[in-house]
């Protein structure tokens, strides 16, 4: 009885935060579901129900569909690259030799910078102007200059590369923390069984990295789906629509064009896409967990 009462008091303690959460998150989310079914616009004084009209328009608009595919492509690729690189870095840098801490912090350093700073910096490194650093290096070795941010076929991958560079170190730190917790006796046992380094990685290290892998994959997947600031700093969605993502489209349509209902519909699609994608990944990860435990 006493416990129940105490629980009730605790519930009351979280009430302010809960109300804030309701007002600032749940309510707006529910509202955008509602508005996606209307003709709402800042410049429109009468609110009417239009049913699924906005969703129909959305999937008819090639630009928006391209933005959705770009986002999914970006999110999947960044998840793969960022984590593969981070795991490799973590395994190689998880040693106690002199200077290793310095190397580790060097790899981690970009994560400290603001995304906008990194974006503007790389805009200068990757520019096609005569002083573009990257092209100067390529030309020094006798290659042809590449139009990193101006070629619609390459631009998205150029942006992606900067983000992998920036965040791989971040994931690496989480992997290293996890690696430290792996019992060294397992490696000794593997040694006795005569396992080589590759076998040891796949049979001992990777399965036991499960907690860090699942956390990192989900984080980079959701982060990738939400990508906005780096695109804003580096390409503004261009050239043409080659690097538009769901977020940039949402801001363009919702705020610049005043098509608020349309942007709400896109937000709903986004919500569903993130939900489904993360569900798939979680199911996949759970199956993996069951297999190793």
């Amino acid at each position, binding site marked *: 009885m006493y416990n129940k*009462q105490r629980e009730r008091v605790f519930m009351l303690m979280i009430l302010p935060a809960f109300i804030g959460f309701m007002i600032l998150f749940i309510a707006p989310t529910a509202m955008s579901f509602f508005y996606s079914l209307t003709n709402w616009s800042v410049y429109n004084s009468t609110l009417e129900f239009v049913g699924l009209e906005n969703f129909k328009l959305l999937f008819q608009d090639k630009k928006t569909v391209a933005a959705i595919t770009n986002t999914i492509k970006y999110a999947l690729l960044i998840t793969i690259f960022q984590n593969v690189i981070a795991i490799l870095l973590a395994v190689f840098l998880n040693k106690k030799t002199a200077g290793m801490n310095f190397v580790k912090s060097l790899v981690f350093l970009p994560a400290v910078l603001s995304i906008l700073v990194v974006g503007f910096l790389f805009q200068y490194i990757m520019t096609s102007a005569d002083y573009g650093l990257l092209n100067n290096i390529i030309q020094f070795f006798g290659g042809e200059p590449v139009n990193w941010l101006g*070629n619609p076929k390459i631009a998205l991958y150029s942006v992606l590369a900067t983000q992998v560079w920036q965040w791989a170190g971040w994931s690496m730190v989480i992997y290293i923390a996890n690696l430290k917790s792996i019992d060294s006796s397992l490696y000794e046992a593997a040694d006795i069984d005569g396992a080589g380094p590759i076998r040891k990685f796949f049979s001992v290290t990777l399965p036991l990295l499960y907690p860090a892998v699942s956390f990192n994959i989900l984080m980079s997947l959701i982060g990738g789906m939400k990508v906005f600031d780096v695109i804003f700093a580096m390409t503004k969605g261009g050239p043409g629509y080659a690097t538009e993502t769901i977020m940039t489209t949402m801001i363009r349509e919702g705020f*610049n064009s005043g098509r608020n209902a349309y942007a709400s519909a896109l937000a709903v699609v986004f919500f569903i896409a993130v939900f489904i994608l993360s569900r798939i990944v979680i199911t996949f990860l759970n199956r993996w967990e069951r297999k190793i435990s």
Partner: protein
Amino acid sequence: MKKKAVTLLICMLMFATILAGCSGETKGSSEKSEDGVVKLRMMGYNPESTRATYLKYLDEQLPNVDIEFEFVALDNFNNVLNSQLQAGEGPDIIEVGGETKLLAKANYLLDLTSKEFTSKYTDSGLKPYSVDDKVYATPLQSWFEGIFYNKAIFKENNIEVPKTWDEFIAISKELSDKGIKPQIMGAQSWEPMMKQSIGLVNNEFYADEESKNFDEAFNEGEAKLAEEWLPAVKEWSRVIEEGILTEEMLGLSYDQALDQFATGKAAMWESGPWAVETIMEKNPDIELGMFPIPGKEEGDGWLIGGPGSALAINAKSEHIDEAVKVLEITATEEAQEALVKDNAGSSFLEGMAVDLGEIYEDSEGAFKAGNVYAPWTAVWTSGNPIVEAYGKSLQEVLAGVKTVEEALKDADDVNENLRNTLK
């Protein structure tokens, strides 16, 4: 039990604080301060430095009004303004541009038609800010954009300022044959190609009497860019076909293009007076000139531009009388001179001439003929999103994925979509 009561009290207190935070600031700003000075909020997307002399002048003229200038960069301006207006807390005086008609239609702006000072402006200055013959804002000085050129490079190569579009292409090719980049462009932004091509549309299409009603019909969805503008834009696209604009320029930002032009790596660059200060900072020795975009036949040429922005009054402002006073003073020659001082441009006050200086000598003919026009800010209802779509598609034209006709169709589509949205 006592403990529980205390906890409950704390919870309620916290809750009350949250609520207080929500509703705290709705009042207060409307009350006059003790010495009778009224605070007016003016929100603009041109930085305070471009309005400094003007604001000082207002201060002297209106001792009992304290104008608080609030700068919000254009990237965010509509976003911030719209949410404030929707919450009923907008600024008293608003600097407006292309979205004026939409704001006016949604009843956010005060009708200025009957005010005396409104009639002091020329019609071309008021037209962009009128809906159904009612005026909702009065124009500040004009903005214009032409082609900057490096006089030294032109002189060294014995090149004259081009009078026709063919000459423009010819001198560009002559320069590139000599190993000089004729024109640089920060095509990573969708704006410059859009503007330059409309420069040719001004020459070939809008200069024609018969095209006078096009913009209105376009607003109504009865006329299409892909039909009417196509010949002019096709003509412009020769700069892409002839290799004067290249794909590399899609990787250049505005600042990077400015830098290349200022340091003499390119002979021409399209922009407006706002860039002059930065160019001079980078290269104080540069000999700068600007010529208007030439048409197929010899003439004065056209600049892209129009009323830069205008001042409107929030219809729900609590200090409408004071705000009207500000606009009244703005409609005097002194105030206009103060405005032009920090931001070069011509004035729309009837009978007022402004000397712009040496750089713009080559454009004088165009100014005298009144050849300054930008349809998307002047008449189009949803101008900005339409030209954005058009400009972005032109980037794809430069990248070789789309044709000029498809780019114009994209702009038509956006117009159609927005018309449906705003019905």
